């Protein structure tokens, strides 16, 4: 087992990621600070996917031949690993194409509850009901709820964000009421880095019988997360942000809820019995996995979980904490730079977004790129949050286990270069 006592050995970790060895833009060393958008993949993950395809590839849950059996075992084995990783049971994990599809699955299934049986009663939503989100959501945890409200006549409400980038919970009693059907919120903001008090929101929701949907895309890859302990009903996260492949996301749903939830996508694999006029549906998780699923991606995500476990999530969190602290300190020393989000590292993850006076984020990103520093620029799929924070666009550096303190220094130096280039230093 790993402990926080021994720090992460970054050099050893980096050796597992071939892409980190390349150069960009006329021979510049790549400084990859965009893991909040997508993470890089270690050889172990790439090898696992290839090994599966070279030895056991077949369509899962159909066919009686040996390959079908082995592929099914590999796919379901990955589900078990991922369930263990986030502290839930095997049958509570549903594979989706990405986290966005996971949120849509819940939102559409709730919409479908209107015409489903009495077991789906608790998911029904309509005029007079309320959906509560927050102003710091990624569009993926906002737009599906706007649409569910539009389709059903329910009302969308939201928590505000304070000037320092924390959730404003001062009006929680007015927002989360007996009218509330869903409270959907992010665990860790992809822009601010803010880590939200999940228990407080989950307790408030439970007290009024509302469901909770947690966007865990930015938390599960970076720190130990236990959905059972957090007390949420549903949660989503994506494979490609945690050293795994794109094309796979994960939806967690509490067992009794998944058992009562109507399907979203329908077709093969998700049925119990089909007649010409009507069908009945399989129990979860199969009910929510219509069609031949993404198999090699699931296997590779299982390998990513093995990789993260071998290093230790608490160690990874401690490492990123150190990088975040250094970045906040370094950026604070540059006149004209404003960090959008908490300036301390309390309840804060490793996404550091900022604006530079007199330089548009796109232009700053271009200078950084010319120096090999890869960051995200724009609104990072959180446009309402940017409006709230009075920033048209920000530059975002996001860290992961393979980043070094030297790379934080490279970021800070590159920001100073951008100021020189545009004559605002």
């Amino acid at each position, binding site marked *: 087992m790993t402990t926080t006592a021994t720090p992460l050995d970054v050099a050893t970790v980096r050796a597992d990621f071939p892409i980190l060895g390349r150069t960009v*833009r*006329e021979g510049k060393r790549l400084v990859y600070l965009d893991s909040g958008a997508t993470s890089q993949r270690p050889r172990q993950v790439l090898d696992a996917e290839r090994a599966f395809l070279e030895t056991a590839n077949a369509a899962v849950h159909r066919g009686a031949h040996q390959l079908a059996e082995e592929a099914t075992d590999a796919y379901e084995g990955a589900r078990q690993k991922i369930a263990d990783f986030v502290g839930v049971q095997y049958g509570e994990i549903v594979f989706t194409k990405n986290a966005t599809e996971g949120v849509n699955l819940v939102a559409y299934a709730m919409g479908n509850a209107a015409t489903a049986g009495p077991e789906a009663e608790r998911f029904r939503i309509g005029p007079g009901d309320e959906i509560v989100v927050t102003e710091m959501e990624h569009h993926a945890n906002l737009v599906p709820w706007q649409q569910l409200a539009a389709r059903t006549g329910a009302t969308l409400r939201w928590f505000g964000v304070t000037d320092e980038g924390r959730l404003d919970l001062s009006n929680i009693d007015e927002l989360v009421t007996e009218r509330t059907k869903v409270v959907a919120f992010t665990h860790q903001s992809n822009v601010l880095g803010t880590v939200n008090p999940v228990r407080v929101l989950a307790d408030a929701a439970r007290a009024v019988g509302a469901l909770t949907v947690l966007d865990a895309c930015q938390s599960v890859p970076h720190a130990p997360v236990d959905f059972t302990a957090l007390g949420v009903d549903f949660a989503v996260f994506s494979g490609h942000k945690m050293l795994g492949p794109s094309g796979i996301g994960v939806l967690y749903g509490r067992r009794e809820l998944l058992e009562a939830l109507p399907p979203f996508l329908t077709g093969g694999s998700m049925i119990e019995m089909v007649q010409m006029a009507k069908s009945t549906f399989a129990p979860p998780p199969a009910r929510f996995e219509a069609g031949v699923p993404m198999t090699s991606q699931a296997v590779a995500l299982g390998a990513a979980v093995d990789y993260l476990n071998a290093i230790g999530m608490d160690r990874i969190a401690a490492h990123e904490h150190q990088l975040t602290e250094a970045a906040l300190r370094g950026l604070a020393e540059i006149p004209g730079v404003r960090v959008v989000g908490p300036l301390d590292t309390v309840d804060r993850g490793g996404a550091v977004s900022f604006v530079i006076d007199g330089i*548009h984020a796109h*232009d700053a990103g*271009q200078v950084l790129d010319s120096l090999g520093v890869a960051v995200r620029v724009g*609104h990072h799929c959180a446009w309402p949050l940017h409006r709230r924070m009075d920033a*048209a*666009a920000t530059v975002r550096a996001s860290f992961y286990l393979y980043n070094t303190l030297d790379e934080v220094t490279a970021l800070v130096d590159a920001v100073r270069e951008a100021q020189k*280039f*545009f004559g605002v230093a």
Partner: protein
Amino acid sequence: MQLQQMYQEIILDHYKNPHGRGLRDPFDAESHQINPTCGDEVTLRVKLDGDTVRDVSYDGQGCSISQASTSVLTDLVVGRPLDEAFEKMDAFVELMQGRGQVEPDEDVLEDGIAFAGVAKYPARVKCALLGWMAFKDAVARSEGAKA
């Protein structure tokens, strides 16, 4: 260095001292264009006088590339017949979508040739075209309003 190729002095000059900026009356039509990947936006008005572009006025917020290219646009189209303005637009679009392989004609594009370096960065092409798309849309709207 590639960065200087992209951020030509001409571009930075237009960015710092934009031509024709500010929304003005009278106008025939207005277009609001947004780049959804970064949130940059421009509101652009067109005033036609028969087939001649009498005035183009605009306001917006965005990166140096989007703001400078809109400034250059006003230099290129104001006072010209519409067909000539559209010829310049087509030449500019061709340059921007050419991945750096198109040789720009200074007689047609004037300061617009400075954007040749931008065309090598596919992510920035949309920035350079934002104002032009607003111009195209505003002219279409004004013609629609007349019809």
